[in-house]
């Protein structure tokens, strides 16, 4: 028998190490130490009800366990084999005690659809993909369904594009299928450019065949015989696994001429990008594939009319494709039963930033930010206070405490001033300065702007300059007005999605954290204490004992003072490196 005690940060903070000690001692006393082991584990992701103790092999799940509960668990459960009722999880709806963790609603918070095979099969073995019902969807399409049926299923499933804008996938397929041409193309957008998002890379590295199969299904549905995967050369492992997968699929005849001895032929080639954010925009992506500059053009014409080489092309994102085969095998009814009214299915999020369980999660649409950050994500690092979460990467906005209970879907996120984007989620704590965060994202957009249209090329640069100005303490209230004004102009007048969304981080931080902007310009103060130029170091004379440690540690000799006498910092010379603060053992250095 094993007793698993949660050793996640949250549970540790509520004395789970003491629970381990007590359990071990108790077992020792009863002479059971040899038979029952106590193990500390990683985070169960159920921090809200922590500390958590799980008994194996019977899967009994105890919540909110206290160190003094150890004797009861050992005497009651381990020796007599009777679960301790009062420590069991109580289902909030049915009010019943649930012993087996498999029946807890919490474990149904994550459902893996796009990631169904990631971390489960060997991505370089096509047989393992087939064993998990792989290529059965393609088989079903070719043998039982007409192309229009396939389009219909995808339409009815309610699947929307996972790359950012959330355009209905079925509708996109329908438009492409109706445009007549001698050649059409299926394009997979694997140009994952959001800093902080890595779900597409993970799908391609962990389950490349799911994308290949979906592209073939799409080809059948819209009448295309060629597929192209546009992937950034910065993803060498994903490229290698895709190549292996394409090779294996060709060998099995699942790509190539007359698949399953039908009239349908489909093959896939790879195209490499140099890793430019703007190439995630479908027209820019197509130009880049054609060998031209990666610059967007006006829509219409949409790629479905005139795309790659002027032919009708259907562009979908990796995660979107990865969801398609299951929709075909399990049916659109199954898929559309998951999620919210207008956003169906699940979404993968990449959790990053000041969160304990950095990683990839997949939850049904409609899950709240609170569930994602505080339950699945294990809460904020080092027990700090949650401040904001940036969804949608550099094109998204910062959401705050008040948005935590908003069910996440495409439309709700837009309504609160952010967006789904590709599903990057960067969590920030009390130490993050929101003006600096906005500046950081703008730095990225300025670098990534293709330069074709003036609002994006010049405007973002100016915004970035203004933000730098403010974080240096040189801003005025008039600058804030100018900033907002300029953001709105760029949003309204830019050519493509990059420029239309690039001011979002600024606008959303201004909407939610205006007080921080004001503190920077009027008080010349950074409330989070992160803008170096606004910091002032000084020595509290009462606390200074004259040990000279700070003066010796100062790299620019800005600190003067006699031994055993008070010390002073010359503000002119000080470079605000913080060395004196670290050196002082008496807490005499004050940061303002």
């Amino acid at each position, binding site marked *: 028998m094993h007793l698993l005690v949660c050793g996640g940060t949250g549970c540790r903070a509520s004395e789970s190490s003491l629970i381990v000690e007590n359990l071990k001692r108790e077992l020792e006393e009863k002479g059971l130490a040899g038979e029952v082991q106590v193990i500390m584990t990683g985070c169960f992701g159920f921090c809200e009800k922590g500390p958590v103790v799980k008994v194996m092999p019977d899967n009994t799940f105890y919540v909110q366990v206290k160190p003094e509960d150890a004797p009861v668990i050992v005497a009651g459960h381990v020796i007599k084999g009777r679960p301790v009722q009062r420590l069991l999880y109580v289902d909030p709806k049915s009010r019943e005690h649930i012993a087996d963790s498999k029946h807890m609603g919490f474990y149904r918070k994550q459902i893996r659809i796009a990631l169904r095979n990631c971390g489960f099969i060997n991505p370089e073995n096509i047989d393992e993909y087939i064993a998990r019902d792989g290529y059965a969807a393609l088989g079903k399409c070719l043998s039982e369904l007409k192309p229009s049926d396939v389009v219909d299923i995808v339409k009815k499933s309610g699947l929307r594009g996972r790359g950012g804008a959330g355009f209905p996938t079925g509708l996109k397929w329908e438009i492409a299928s109706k445009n007549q041409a001698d050649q059409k193309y299926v394009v997979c957008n694997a140009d994952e450019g959001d800093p902080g998002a890595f779900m597409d890379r993970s799908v391609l590295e962990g389950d490349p065949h799911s994308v290949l199969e979906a592209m073939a299904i799409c080809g059948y549905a819209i009448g295309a015989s060629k597929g192209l995967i546009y992937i950034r050369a910065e993803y060498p492992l994903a490229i290698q696994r895709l190549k292996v997968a394409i090779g294996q699929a060709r060998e099995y005849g699942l790509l190539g001429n007359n698949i399953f001895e039908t009239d349908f032929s489909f093959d896939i080639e790879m195209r490499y990008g140099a890793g430019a954010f703007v190439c995630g925009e479908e027209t820019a992506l197509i130009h880049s594939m054609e060998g031209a500059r990666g610059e967007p053009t006006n829509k219409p014409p949409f790629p479905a009319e005139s795309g790659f080489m002027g032919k009708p092309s259907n562009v979908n994102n990796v995660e979107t494709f990865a969801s398609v085969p299951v929709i075909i095998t399990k049916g659109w009814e199954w898929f559309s039963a998951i999620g919210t009214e207008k956003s169906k299915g699940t979404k993968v999020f990449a959790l990053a930033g000041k969160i304990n369980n950095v990683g*990839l999660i*997949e939850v049904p649409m409609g899950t709240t930010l609170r569930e994602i950050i505080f339950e699945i994500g294990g809460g904020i690092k080092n027990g700090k206070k949650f401040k904001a979460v940036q969804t949608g990467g550099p094109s998204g906005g910062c959401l705050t405490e008040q948005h935590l209970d908003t069910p996440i879907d495409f439309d709700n996120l837009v309504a609160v001033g952010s967006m789904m984007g590709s599903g990057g989620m960067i969590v920030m704590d009390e130490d993050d300065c929101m003006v600096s965060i906005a500046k950081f994202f703008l730095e990225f957009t300025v670098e990534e702007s293709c330069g074709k249209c003036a609002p994006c090329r010049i405007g973002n640069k100016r915004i970035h300059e203004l933000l730098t100005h403010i974080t240096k303490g040189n801003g005025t209230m008039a600058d804030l007005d100018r900033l907002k004004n300029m953001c709105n102009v760029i949003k309204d007048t830019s050519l493509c999605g990059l420029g239309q969304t690039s001011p979002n981080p600024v606008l959303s931080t201004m909407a939610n954290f205006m007080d921080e902007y004001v503190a920077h310009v009027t008080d010349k103060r950074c409330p989070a204490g992160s803008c170096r130029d606004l910091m002032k170091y000084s020595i509290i004379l009462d606390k200074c004992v004259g040990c000279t440690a700070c003066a010796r540690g100062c790299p620019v000799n800005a600190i003067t003072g006699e031994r055993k006498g008070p010390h002073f910092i010359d503000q002119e010379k000080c470079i605000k490196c913080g060395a004196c603060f670290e050196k002082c053992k008496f807490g005499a250095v004050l940061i303002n």
Partner: protein
Amino acid sequence: MGKLKTLADLKRIREETQAKLDLRIKGDSPEGLVQVKVAMATCGIASGARPIMDFFIDELDKRGIGAVVTQTGCMGYCYAEPTIEIQLPGKEPVVYGFVDRKRADEIIEKYIKNGELVEGIIPVNYEKID
């Protein structure tokens, strides 16, 4: 393996591979092998999954334990890389995180040999679809 001409060919491969995997997983028979999956996506490899995979291959062989070591994609626990999943015959799979050589050695000696769980377990917190 030649081309798959019909859906029956596809079904055959599915059944054969499923049977092979089942044998590994469920087999109480002597054929039941220990299955070790190493998460080898970019996150895992960057945190040192490759030498850990080599370690398992070499050491399980040296210590005479019948096992299949395979690579797999990202399990999602990027904060705890390298992560591995071990499935002993007839048992539920167990995921271990932060696996270095020391922990890998402990996993082989204690968990794989005797079924004793060791520190570093990552509780699985998602539902799989079948």
